[in-house]
């Protein structure tokens, strides 16, 4: 059953008993004969039941944050002093990103349709070593294909990783690959799954903003850019510049 805004609003209205008398009669009539609709209504009902317990949700989030803190504290205690190679790689990746963006941006000023802005500001997330959840051979393979911009093939490799072992960097690569093969909604889904407590959240937010830009939803893009500016991390400067261009339109 295709999920549309209209369908969701009808189901929600039915469950909350806020449909008009006529709408209610028509909906119940359809529900009585349409098995797919029955299943969909049940899914909405279960979702509402499970997520209306806001105390438990808040507790679950608290537990997740506490555990993250504990793992970080353990890592800090065991980390050796000095400059670690992995940190060096991450800084290098960030520098590559900043330089690449800077090189492209000076060309942009006169081309400011959402698509043009997207093309000007979009630089794929740079490759770091990623091995968790994939074996070394597969990891080498997808990184090589990603560097060669064979995004269709990258997505095939990464889609094989199970949800349990998929980590946040995989999601960034998969989201970027989807973006490059015209699967913007799938890209959004990957970026949205990166938690706001993650160190990759700023990257994910930047790519979400660009995905909305590509979809020409400038309002959604602007809202995310505003948050990136407030966060004041490595994307703040570009986010500010892009937001100014969007606001001039």
């Amino acid at each position, binding site marked *: 059953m295709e999920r549309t805004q209209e369908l969701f609003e009808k189901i929600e209205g039915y469950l909350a008993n806020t449909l008009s008398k006529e709408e209610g009669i028509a909906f119940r009539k359809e529900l009585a004969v349409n098995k797919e609709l029955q299943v969909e209504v049940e899914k909405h009902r279960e979702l509402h039941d499970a997520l209306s317990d806001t105390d438990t949700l808040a507790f679950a989030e608290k537990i997740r944050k506490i*555990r993250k803190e504990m793992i970080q504290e353990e890592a800090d205690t065991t980390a050796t002093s000095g400059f670690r190679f992995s940190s060096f790689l991450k800084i290098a990746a960030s520098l590559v990103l900043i330089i690449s963006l800077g090189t492209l941006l000076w060309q942009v000023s006169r081309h400011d349709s959402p698509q043009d802005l997207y093309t000007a500001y979009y630089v794929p997330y740079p490759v770091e070593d990623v091995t968790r959840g994939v074996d070394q051979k597969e990891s080498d393979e997808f990184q090589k294909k990603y560097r060669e911009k064979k995004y269709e093939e990258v997505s095939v490799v990464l889609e094989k990783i199970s949800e349990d072992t998929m980590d946040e960097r995989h999601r960034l690569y998969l989201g970027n690959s989807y973006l490059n093969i015209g699967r913007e909604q799938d890209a959004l889904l990957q970026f949205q799954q990166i938690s706001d407590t993650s160190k990759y959240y700023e990257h994910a937010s930047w790519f979400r903003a660009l995905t909305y830009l590509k979809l020409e939803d400038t309002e959604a893009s602007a809202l995310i850019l505003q948050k990136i500016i407030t966060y004041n991390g490595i994307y703040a400067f570009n986010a500010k510049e892009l937001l100014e261009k969007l606001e001039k339109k």
Partner: protein
Amino acid sequence: MSTTRERKIMEGIVTGDRQVIKEFYTNNYPYIRKYIIQNSGDETDAEDVFQDAIIMMYQKLKTGTLEVHSSLRTYFYAICKNIWRNRLRRNKKFVGSSDMVNAEEIDVSLLEEIEQKEREQLYQRYFLKLSHTCRELLTMVFEGKTMREISDMTEYSSGYARKKKFDCKKSLMDMIEKDSAYHELTMIKKDIF
């Protein structure tokens, strides 16, 4: 049955006391981790099971339905072990080894409750993976706020708030349905009802 120390732990969990929760983790996680890794699981499985069990204990404490007949630790380990055995069974990896089963772990009513809570926790786990904006918006929806109230509180236009609500809810449902555990739990529910 509970000792003063256990009562303090239970109180700390239900009030969300960070120090108590951290100590509870430090004292109990290594045992659960070892158990799960020895029984076909990995580190991520151990983290998930431990978190789901502590959430289940929180819900029971909050509703006053926690009945501990032995020690709190034994009860908590029983929840963890039963959650893990259920997951292995769903994944067809459970072979019923005698090492895994002993009298203290078997509690039929607890098993039934675990099945029910597993679905809720699956929804909650994916909800927490949504962006902050989506979580905020859907929380207001699930709290029963009208779109007009949501629009006033978020300063989104009414049309944008409705569209955003749809996008967020659809993303959430898509994510949940992509998880194989969702389909396994759906099959179990069909078998039960």
